[in-house]
């Protein structure tokens, strides 16, 4: 076992995946083919262009399109393809920022809540910076796991690019405790839950208490008296067990032998990080792909719950995507592009409601996360998106207060309770945005006498729902008195309509 591991460490790419070819299109087609086997019983026409752009924008850059973007995309049917739109969105800096939020909450979910939320900003900014420089995600993971305890100078901070300091999130968000770092790293980076084994052996658990502490041993820091001590000799005490253990991977392999000085790894965390980031690590790629899929579909491709219906097709789809992603050097933006390019993603799904047992990974309606909702509200009101590096402290505070009220960062976690619904209807943020004086869009429309009422209403629909009103909408608007031609009350009327539109289920979901 030990030898096998060493061999794998040194060979970056596993064999046997080249059949997929190098083109992302090849992978998309292969996944499509796999999923198509289950498509027959469902609707599978593609969503129209307006729906597609809104969905992809929310998923790739974390906000709805502007009215102008939406109108232009629909009008450009012959010039801009969906593939081009996906590429344009996913290669933008906003995409890196949005993916950074995904990565941070995937790896360090505890940084979304007290007392570790102070780490969120720096961690996300650093990850976004790395992604913007096309750094592979496995290298980003390696660096976050192996980051030194010692203070850093700016030269050694961001690896080959970037000037930001590598955040010590793993260390600080786990109170410097090896056992907590181990549990965090295995569950977050690899999707393996070892923590149940921390206190005792559980009869139904795959891992033993000893295995848990052997993993924890990788995370024991060396004291300054131990500088020359090799990592594999550092031990950790199992509480109440009367013994200590040295680092061993929970897979049963011993990662490295003492006589492999060429790798020059000094801390246990570096060794563990190297293993996590290896191309043949059986967990890392699958974990990331599965969770990004969950982000875009509301549920992961594969779960480990005992009563989940076995779905070989889902398993296969996950395998194909994971292998192809490894082949594409863990490029997270490529992965996002690929998933969004599948038929499964682009399908028109608003047919009969699906049930939990439906085997097809059918896109379900997802609620907007806190950041998606905040940024989309501002875009809808004609305001520029908030940017951490450009905006005033006041704006950042406004965003922070909003995120505390809508704390979900992952689309799978979005739920809406009555308190949040109240805030959306009566809260200060929406009141300001519905006030014609502080909503640039409404103010502009109200001050444009050359626009008809219908044109104003149409603009509001494009800005909020990214589509023109349909016949039923017009009828409802007419009955409700929103089409009166009274210039004196136009501003108030449009402010009210804005309130209605942003409170609607349609605005609050990605569908």
């Amino acid at each position, binding site marked *: 076992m030990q030898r096998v591991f060493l061999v794998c460490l040194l060979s970056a790419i596993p064999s046997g995946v080249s059949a997929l070819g190098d083109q992302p299109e090849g992978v998309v087609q292969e996944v499509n083919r796999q999923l198509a086997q289950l498509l027959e019983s469902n609707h599978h026409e593609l969503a129209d262009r307006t729906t597609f752009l809104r969905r992809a924008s929310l998923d790739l850059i974390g906000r709805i399109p502007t009215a102008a973007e939406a109108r232009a995309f629909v009008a450009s049917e012959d010039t801009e393809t969906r593939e081009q739109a996906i590429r344009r969105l996913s290669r933008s800096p906003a995409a890196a920022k949005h993916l950074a939020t995904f990565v941070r909450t995937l790896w360090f979910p505890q940084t979304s809540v007290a007392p570790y939320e102070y780490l969120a900003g720096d961690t996300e900014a650093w990850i976004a910076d790395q992604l913007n420089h096309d750094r592979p995600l496995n290298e980003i993971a390696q660096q976050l796991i192996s980051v030194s305890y010692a203070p850093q100078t700016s030269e050694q901070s961001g690896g080959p690019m970037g000037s930001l300091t590598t955040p010590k999130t793993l260390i600080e968000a786990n109170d410097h405790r090896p056992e907590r770092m181990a549990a965090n790293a295995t569950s977050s980076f690899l999707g393996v839950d070892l923590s149940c084994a921390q206190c005792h052996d559980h009869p139904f658990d795959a891992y033993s208490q000893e295995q848990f502490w052997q993993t924890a041993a990788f995370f024991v820091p060396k004291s300054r008296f131990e500088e020359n001590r090799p990592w594999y000799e550092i031990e950790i005490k199992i509480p109440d067990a009367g013994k200590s253990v040295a680092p061993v991977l929970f897979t049963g392999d011993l990662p490295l032998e003492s006589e492999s000085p060429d790798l020059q790894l000094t801390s246990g965390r570096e060794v563990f990080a190297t293993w996590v980031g290896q191309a043949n690590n059986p967990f890392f790629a699958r974990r990331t792909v599965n969770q990004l899929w969950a982000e875009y579909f509301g549920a992961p491709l594969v779960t480990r719950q005992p009563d989940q219906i076995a779905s070989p097709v889902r398993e296969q789809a996950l395998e194909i995507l994971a292998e192809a992603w490894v082949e594409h050097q863990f490029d997270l933006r490529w992965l996002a592009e690929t998933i969004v390019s599948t038929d499964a993603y682009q399908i028109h799904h608003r047919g009969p409601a699906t049930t939990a047992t439906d085997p097809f990974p059918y896109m379900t309606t997802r609620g907007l996360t806190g950041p998606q909702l905040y940024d989309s509200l501002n875009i809808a009101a004609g305001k520029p998106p908030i940017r951490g590096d450009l905006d005033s402290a006041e704006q950042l505070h406004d965003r922070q207060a909003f995120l505390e009220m809508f704390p979900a960062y992952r689309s799978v976690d979005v739920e809406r309770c009555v308190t949040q*619904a109240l805030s959306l209807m009566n809260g200060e943020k929406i009141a300001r945005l519905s006030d014609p004086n502080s909503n640039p869009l409404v103010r502009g429309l109200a001050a444009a006498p050359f626009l008809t009422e219908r044109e104003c209403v149409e603009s509001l629909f494009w800005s909020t729902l990214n589509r023109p009103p349909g016949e039923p909408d017009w009828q409802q608007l007419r009955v409700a008195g929103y089409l009166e031609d009274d210039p004196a009350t136009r501003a108030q009327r449009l402010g009210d309509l804005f309130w209605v539109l942003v409170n609607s289920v349609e605005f609050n979901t990605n569908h």
Partner: protein
Amino acid sequence: MLQGISRRLFGMSLAAASSSMMLQGSWLRSLSAAEKTSDTKVKRVILLWLHGGPATIDLWDLKPEHDNGGPFKEIATKTPGMRISEHFPGLAKWSDHCAIVRSMTSREGDHGRAVHLARTGYIPQAGIDFPDLGALVAQEQAQSEAPLPGFISIAPPQRPAIASRGFLDTAASPLVVGEMAKSVDDLVVRDLEQRSPLGQSRRVDLLGQMNEHFLAQGSDRKAIELAAATQRALRMMHPDVVAAFDLEREKDSVRDRYGRTIFGQGCLLARRLAERDVPFVEVSLGGWDTHYDNFGRVAGLSSQLDSGFASLVQDLSERGMLEETLILCQGEFGRTPKINANSGRDHWPKAWAVMAAGGPNCHGQVIGSTSKDGTVVESKPYQVPDLIATVCASMGIDPMKQNDSNVNRPIRIADPSAGLIEELVG
């Protein structure tokens, strides 16, 4: 009865049936108890949550004969044999509607874990998001069209540390009133009042129509949930419902009687919500983590507790609601009988007490006992799951009912090991 059981077993899978056989002990106990229960059921629960671990040895189970007892005196109550701290003169007058369980015991001495246990009935388990008792009750008892949520939490110490719906539906979420309240004025529901009432009805009508149209096009769970949350919020915005939270509508003399503290006014608010049939309301009183100056602090806290608690019992009794309202008063554990060097007491989960009032079955019982020095339970040891099961059973909720959890594994309302506190079920 028997027919019911066999039919039930018959319908289960083999595995489920055999695991249910293993639980037979507690099943039979709850069944026999259910037969004994009087016709009156508890319709609602008010939990007075003493955050931080109250020194129950200085509240409900004094040890005046022992060094561990501290300086507080015991007073007699209306009920012979039920003696409580001198700082509860108000409650002493209502002892015939109270019951003290002096024999609670658990193993969790860490605040986080013990709060989790005391509020959910389960010790924390990685990845499982257990719901609070309040959410469990709301899930079972709340009417879907009720104007108010089924679980309202008044002045909780900090979200999300406590008050959570766990893996239950969003409808079981607590409505938080006065989160981290610093004064009585903070006891408000955030954003409940409409900012522009004039345009409101026109807006609301159109919103309703748009949502209806959107859902009619083919919708799934998430969309329906979002629309339902909006509907619930709209129902709450009705002026009659908003008025429930307006303490200014109470006479000054009543407000004074409850005490002009956050807790006192919280109890008054709890009564107003009980009058509107909210199935589970909790009012928190923090500050019980008395490692230092235990006696000075407990005296002050006790007097706040006394005026709020006793006034609540009095008002419910006057309104004929006491029999159908169960008031539970507890924290996460007790405190060390031995007084430490800072005249404080430390954490003590091994033996602690819960006070209950109201409902059909509280009539002056003192249940269980601790040793002379207060360190261990001597008779009738009860655990948190027993208490949870008892509360549920008294409301007609089957404590062994299973809910779908976030880990796709059914989890029973009360831990399968739970029995009933027989003295509290009639």
